[in-house]
């Protein structure tokens, strides 16, 4: 018998994260962040600063337009980082590398695997969030020290979308299925109050927008960034946590079926 073996705790979730770090150790976290913030920074410059020049200040909050858009772009960038790791990358690990199959025959549990992949998405989200924060600070778009709340908020956002992404990956049948994901993600990005407040919508539409997880993610970052910290943020956080938890439980069930049939 082998007494050197002690089953890894938490189903080995940390080891899944460690493996992902090994794969990425060629590129430092900051090059990772650079790639992840490249796109949102372009949006910030083109729309926030460019169009912002025409818009001036946003009524109700009295801040420059770019400062209004920046928190939403941060939330979106964090979301996209977590999603990238738990959808496309996860699908490739499953279908082509058979990486998850190789874990299934070790003491790593399916819970550990799912938790580990989501945690990895959160780590990626965190790095992206910090990178983006550094850029907006440099651009002078930070108006309140409360903006630091964006760090825990980013972790929560990455958890929610990471869990949702990994659940989705469990149903993907081929690369073309990712087009359907785009069909959901692009409208959500455009209409979840990224570029203007929810008050521009008539009530029935506003209700739909308020049901979008990205809306709550944006609220959670934008409020503190603009110095508006109130109990409403707890509602946003609770909504994201609930969606994330449900997705995590469903993802675990789905992946158990896929890997232990």
């Amino acid at each position: 018998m082998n007494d050197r073996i002690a089953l890894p705790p938490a189903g080995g979730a940390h080891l899944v994260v460690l493996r992902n770090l090994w794969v990425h150790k060629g590129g430092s976290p900051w090059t990772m962040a650079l790639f992840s913030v490249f796109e949102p920074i372009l949006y910030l410059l083109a729309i926030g600063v460019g169009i912002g020049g025409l818009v001036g200040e946003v009524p109700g909050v009295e801040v420059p337009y770019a400062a209004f858009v920046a928190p939403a772009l941060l939330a979106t960038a964090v979301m996209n980082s977590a999603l990238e790791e738990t959808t496309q990358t996860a699908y490739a690990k499953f279908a082509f590398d058979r990486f998850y199959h190789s874990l299934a025959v070790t003491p790593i549990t399916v819970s550990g695997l799912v938790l580990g992949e989501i945690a990895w998405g959160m780590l990626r989200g965190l790095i992206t969030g910090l990178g983006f924060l550094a850029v907006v600070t440099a651009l002078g778009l930070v108006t309140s020290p409360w903006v630091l709340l964006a760090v825990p908020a980013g972790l929560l956002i990455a958890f929610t979308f990471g869990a949702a992404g990994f659940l989705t990956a469990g149903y993907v049948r081929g690369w073309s299925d990712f087009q359907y994901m785009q069909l959901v993600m692009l409208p959500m990005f455009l209409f979840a109050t990224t570029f203007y407040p929810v008050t521009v919508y008539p009530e029935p539409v506003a209700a739909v927008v308020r049901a979008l997880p990205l809306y709550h993610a944006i609220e959670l970052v934008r409020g503190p960034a603009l110095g508006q910290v109130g109990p409403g943020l707890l509602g946003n956080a609770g909504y994201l946590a609930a969606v994330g938890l449900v997705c995590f439980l469903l993802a675990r069930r789905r992946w158990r079926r896929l890997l232990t049939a």
Partner: protein
Amino acid sequence: MAVLNALIEAAGLEKTYPARDRKGTAFRAVAGVDFQVHRGEAFGFLGPNGAGKSSTMRMLAGVSAPTAGTLRILGLDPVADGRRVRARLGVVPQDDSLDTQLTVEENLLVYGLYFGLSRRAVRARAGELLEFARLEDKAGERVEHLSGGMRRRLTIARALINEPEILLLDEPTTGLDPQARHVLWDRLFRLKQDGVTLILTTHYMDEAEQLCDRLVVMDKGLIADEGSPRELIERHVTREVLELRFPPGEHEEVGRKLGDQVEVLPDRLLWYADDGEQALAQATEAGVRPLTALVRRTGLEDVFLRLTGRSLTD
């Protein structure tokens, strides 16, 4: 009693896969099998594609839950105690699942960590295993750049990282060239000598004959018979077999003429006899004029044919 020593005991073991979609039907891949594997033995599942070998192996690996029957591995229930069972097994799956993003050595290191080994232990063990798999000079190479045989050896080395008591090998040499297969067999012999219990599946007769102390012949989810290669051959076939080939279309007719002792295949007739030359003489006497005639020793292929009426690799 032998049962007490059994590392693995399966009784009435079944695996039924649920329908893939609403239009599909459930499929019973393993239809009730009984077997025992003892410590230090090399035990084989011989059967054609679709026989249910991999399904059985996945149940043995503590990955897939049996639909019915009982299964004890190392005295444990592989469903309730899956993690503890897996911690003590080594698994070489049918499809390569090496971490292509990592180097050869990193594959071993990270895999050892999955088993809860300390970094120190894993480093020492990886060194030994690189040598065992003859991959010392490939340690820093990315897995993508390895040949098929090297990948297979690395997969086996990886499965040994936790010093398993049982090594499960699902078609270890399928797709390899003859030379790579011999290198692999040599490594497996060494493991056997070191006392590792080997369980392997194969659809190669020579592999089964070379490696297995005992094997079961599997077909359509069932075990057709069990024994050592020698026993199975003695039980089911004569010492020799005469192979006769004729122009296309004549097999059936000649088969009828020669009677029950011959097996009619699409491309040839097989006449099982203790003395093949004598059978050939008899055939000639009966006026049979084959294109070619060959007398050879019988093997597991013939056992399989006799048990199932089909050839193993078709």
